[in-house]
């Protein structure tokens, strides 16, 4: 189906050309209702059951803006260090494609609600992590389109289809489109910069709790613009726009691919066509789509059915004051507080355990213990069950209680794992599980000494070895006592009692 393009070796391409990037990210908001009507935004409903005269573009229907959509746009703008427009309007973006029954998409054109911002990202390079500031051109409000199923033809694609079927449940769901200024100076790290930017943006938007930002589900979508020029002193070359880049890894790969593809064409004296290209996740290729219509072809004009949005400065400042801490700064702060290495911090972040570990420490647990449980036992269980850590039926408070009991010598790690199992099984709070399962450590010396004596009797040579200074032999006795008490003994205590019994000092 797709023609394989000639590619130049990436390093060779970078010797000849300077890449210029631009990234457009669409964030689908998790509001209850659509941007301009009160239809549900729930994913996965039966086709055309979350529609009304407004989102179907029926004559006479009057759209009204969703306040939560505007609020989310302002919060995203503020988090990206943007200025917030004092007055702005929606525009109609006219085009002929049946994914919008109105024949236009309601968007913002020359009056975006947020503009002139930046996002600082950390780019991994061969020389370590490089800070890089990505300048934000604008963030504006618009609406999502419906979904088309292309029928007939071999591949379900629009090319070769006999007809198409349209479901407008998604039409009108609020989107925020975030557009960077041209990203220059990334050089050979352009792919990494692109990926780091999308990752940082996703994390930032997630912290605002305005979107699921799931790339795999389309609630965060990325289009990659890329052009090459001979040197950083030259004017920008003609760019292509690669759409459908739906994973962080693909963002990086798509940039790399376009650099390599365009380099061959330019080196051979060819011209880049300004066009939309489609990224294919399975093959890692892009194929040509439509030749991009010029902005004037969309015949933008102010949407006469909606009135201007003029967010009061009080509202903007109120939203600014309620922004959560920037996630990157928060990570740096927590890492310093916990005194752990970059590697250990990355493990916490990668396990998506940051909030849980922080909350567990706040509930009184030691940082090392909090990390140990969430990244070890609980990650393993979550993984087995195909759940996220957050979905496990155990809380930071439970773990803090378990840790407190370990510190008091009432539990050991083995018993703690059984307590966790019980909490996850819904047997109640930590203390109830301990009582219910009879898990408390044997703390009376009497039964422990009896078990020690029994073990020494069964293995008479052990006492001699220990007396002769071979302290490692104690392991055999401790093991036997642990077995006799079904694990409900504190191993360190058993060891201490054993040495006391034998009159040996450690």
């Amino acid at each position, binding site marked *: 189906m797709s023609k394989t393009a000639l590619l130049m070796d990436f390093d060779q391409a970078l010797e000849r050309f300077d890449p210029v990037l631009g990234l457009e990210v669409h964030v689908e908001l998790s509001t*209850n209702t659509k941007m301009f009507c009160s*239809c549900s935004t729930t994913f996965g409903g*039966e*086709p*055309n059951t979350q529609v009304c005269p407004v989102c*179907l573009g029926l004559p006479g229907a009057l759209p009204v803006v969703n*306040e939560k959509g505007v609020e989310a746009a302002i919060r995203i703008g503020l988090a990206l260090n943007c200025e917030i427009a004092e007055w702005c309007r929606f525009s109609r973006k006219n085009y002929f494609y049946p994914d919008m029954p109105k024949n236009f998409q309601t968007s913002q054109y020359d009056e975006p609600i947020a503009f002139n911002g930046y996002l600082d990202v950390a780019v991994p390079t061969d020389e370590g992590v490089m800070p890089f500031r990505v300048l934000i051109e604008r963030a504006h409000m618009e609406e999502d389109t419906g979904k088309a199923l292309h*029928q007939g033809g071999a591949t379900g694609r629009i090319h070769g289809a006999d*007809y198409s079927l349209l479901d407008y449940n998604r039409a009108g769901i609020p989107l925020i489109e975030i557009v960077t200024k041209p990203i220059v100076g990334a050089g050979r790290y352009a792919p990494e910069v692109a990926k780091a930017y999308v990752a940082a943006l996703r994390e930032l938007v997630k912290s605002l709790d305005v979107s699921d930002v799931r790339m795999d589900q389309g609630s965060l979508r990325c289009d990659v613009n890329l052009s090459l020029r001979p040197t950083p002193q030259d004017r920008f070359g003609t760019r292509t726009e690669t759409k459908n880049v739906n994973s962080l890894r693909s963002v990086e790969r798509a940039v790399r691919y376009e650099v390599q593809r365009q380099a061959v064409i330019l080196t051979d004296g060819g011209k880049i066509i300004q066009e939309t290209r489609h990224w294919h996740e399975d093959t890692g290729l892009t194929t040509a789509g439509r030749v991009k219509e010029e902005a004037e072809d969309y015949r933008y004009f102010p949407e006469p059915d909606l*009135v201007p949005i003029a967010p009061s400065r009080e509202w903007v400042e109120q939203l600014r004051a309620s922004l959560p801490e920037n996630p990157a700064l928060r990570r740096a702060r927590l890492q310093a507080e916990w005194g752990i290495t970059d590697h250990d911090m990355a493990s916490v972040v990668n396990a998506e355990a940051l909030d849980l570990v922080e909350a567990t420490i706040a509930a009184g647990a030691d940082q090392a213990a909090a990390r140990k449980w969430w990244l070890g036992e609980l990650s393993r269980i979550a993984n087995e069950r195909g759940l996220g850590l957050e979905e496990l039926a155990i809380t930071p408070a439970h773990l803090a209680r378990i840790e407190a009991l370990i510190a008091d010598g009432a539990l050991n790690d083995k018993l703690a794992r059984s307590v966790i199992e019980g909490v996850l099984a819904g047997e109640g709070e930590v203390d109830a599980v301990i009582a219910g399962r009879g898990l408390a450590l044997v703390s009376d010396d009497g039964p422990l000494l009896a078990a020690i004596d029994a073990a020494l009797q069964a293995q008479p040579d052990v006492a001699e070895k220990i007396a002769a200074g071979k302290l490692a032999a104690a392991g055999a006795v401790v093991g036997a006592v642990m077995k006799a008490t079904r694990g409900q003994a504190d191993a360190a205590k058993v060891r201490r009692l054993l040495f006391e019994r034998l009159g040996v000092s450690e």
Partner: protein
Amino acid sequence: MSGITRAEVAHLAKLARLTIDDEHLDHYAEQLNVIIESVARVSEVAGDDVPATSHPLPLINVMRADVQRPGLTNAEALSNAPAQEQGRFRVPRILDEE
């Protein structure tokens, strides 16, 4: 006010997915010119002190709460559709074979 050209009419026709044969291009260019000239007279009346407007009423910030309201049923939504299939609107082939 420079007039609309034949090429511009052809471009507009392409964007609007209208088939206009050569002889009609001049005809429409002429008609569109009349319309554009008429509208242009408004600009003569409006001075620099009159801002462009997009809405007849001086309203701002008309917004609604993010609360769901029932919309149309699937049958209602599709009731005026010329063709439907699998609960969806059926539309003719979108791309011409090129």
